[in-house]
């Protein structure tokens, strides 16, 4: 494996007059756990959208394990092994937990094998069961996703990202709308699963960050203003001012 999992080179994105991402350079090492923080509108989600191909940049390149993915379509980028969790929990409401995870596990099949195959083979099922244990949904495989609570949906979506066996996980606010105890639980889950996957997390919750953050990147008005461990970041005056300071 190359020594760089994901490399962002001189990336820029404008929305009309707004410079959403301003010449950003970023490198993610394999198996790294990185938190992306910054005030609302800093460009965190936009960065995820650019990496996953939802929107295309005006300038710059994105390299995944040395391969240029800047102009690929979203499903092509996903197929390389980049999986994402959306900010608002996004699961398939009309399907059961087991089916949700099964679809995620079968994600890289060709259209032909989807049409002519069945995915509930034992290997897939075993993996899915394992994941259900991990995200605290064990024994509830036949429950419809629509009946889950907000926090449980977040967990299910994290489970789906995991079932996909990604090389890189992009988690957009995995603890949004969670109770403090659920937030703590989520930080444990993410710690466990990020051991052998490159993980990038967007978060607002300071408690969560303290718990989890090894490397933190601070984004402000589309540009990177600081990088370092959480303790280092906390002590930078500029960061306190634009981000942490507001929250006291």
């Amino acid at each position, binding site marked *: 494996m190359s020594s760089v999992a994901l490399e962002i080179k001189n990336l820029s994105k404008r929305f009309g007059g707004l410079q959403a991402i301003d010449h950003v350079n970023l490198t993610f090492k394999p198996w790294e756990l990185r938190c992306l923080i910054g005030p*609302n509108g800093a460009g965190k989600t936009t960065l995820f959208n650019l990496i*996953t191909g939802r929107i295309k940049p005006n300038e710059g390149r994105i390299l995944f394990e040395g391969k240029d993915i800047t102009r690929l379509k*979203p*499903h092509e980028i*996903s*197929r390389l092994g980049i*999986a*994402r969790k*959306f900010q*608002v929990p*996004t*699961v*398939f*409401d*009309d*399907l059961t937990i087991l*089916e949700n995870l*099964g*679809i*995620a596990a*079968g*994600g*890289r099949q060709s*259209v032909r094998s*989807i*049409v002519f*195959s*069945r*995915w*509930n083979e034992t290997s897939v099922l075993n993996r899915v069961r394992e994941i259900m244990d991990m995200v605290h949904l064990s024994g509830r495989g036949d*429950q419809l996703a629509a*009946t*889950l*609570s*907000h*926090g*449980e949906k977040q967990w299910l979506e994290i489970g*789906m990202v995991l079932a*996909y066996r990604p090389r890189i996980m992009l988690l957009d606010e995995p603890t*949004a*709308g*969670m*109770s*403090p*105890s*659920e937030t703590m639980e989520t930080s444990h889950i993410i710690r466990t699963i990020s051991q052998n996957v490159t993980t990038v997390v967007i978060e607002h919750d300071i408690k969560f960050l303290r718990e989890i953050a090894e490397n933190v990147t601070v984004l402000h008005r589309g540009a990177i203003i600081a990088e370092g461990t959480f303790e280092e970041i906390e002590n930078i005056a500029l960061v306190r001012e634009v981000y942490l300071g507001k929250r006291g």
Partner: protein
Amino acid sequence: MRIIVLVVLFAMVGFPWVGGDYDVVLVSRVLCFAILALSLDLLWGYTGLLSFGHGAFFGIGAYSLGLTLKYLHFTGNAYVGILVGTIGAVIIAVVLGYFLFYGRVSGIYFGIITLALTTILFSIVNHPDAFYIAGGQNGLYGTFLKPRYGIPGIWEYQRTLTSNLANYYTTMVGFLAAFVFCHYLVRSSFGKILRAIQNNEERLEYLGYNVANLKIVIFAVACGLAGFAGSLSVPIQFIGPTVFGLIFSTSVIIWVAVGGRGTLLGPAIGALVVTYVESWLSTQFASLWVLFLGTFFILVIVFQPDGIMGLQRRWRTRRLTTGAVMNHSILSTAQDPKEIQDVVRSLGNKKSQ
């Protein structure tokens, strides 16, 4: 469950000996319509793609068989005609689907373009230059030999307008085949993925699925089925430009909506009920019946959007849901009142973002 299936099958097989001629003809037609409604349901009920011009593919099937019978006289031409109708519909669906789904046309725009396709086909078959081929306003009525089914060259039977039993049983077999096909399709892994497309196609895309290709596949399958239904309807139904008309395509949507979309029995029941109500109303009220039918449809959409099948589902799940909602509410994980407050507050933040 098995007993119900057997009873229904028995009733279907025995029906022609009980029902009058008029009813047998009507039910034969309903069976063709039911296949068409099923195929629209695969698109609309399961995948979330509402086609406003689904009648076009039924018409393609009907005209394909009709024209084959009119111009090509050889043993087994009826089968060739059905095949041409089905595969022709599939090919047109693939070509159209390629441009629509890779062009990210969705929602109402998908409906409008399928509607445009019907209108185009209507003008083609109605065009004066096509008169000698397609018969214009008169359609193909009385211009072709009757289709022969059975084993070509060895044992054949003919379907004509008056051979009620032959028509009934041929369409019945066709309907049952289509129903079983759809039954297995929606329960397969592909069927689950269709529901996932309806729920959230973006989520699916970010799990590596080529959603555009999957939509092309289901569009082609549904349109092929519609073409097949059209071919089966050939001697019972007048083949004319009306199959490409707006009213016919709208009727298909009404059948599915009244019966209940997202179920397989629903569209069939919807086709049966609406066709019967329609034929009854049209004998009672010479011209006002369309008005009543429209009112009926509006009432269904407003008061029973899940259709007839929704009544049954609602009755079955009423007892279960009230308890389940409480058990799995977000508050179930919070222990003390302060924590509940936190949850409520963070939910509030979520909304304001």
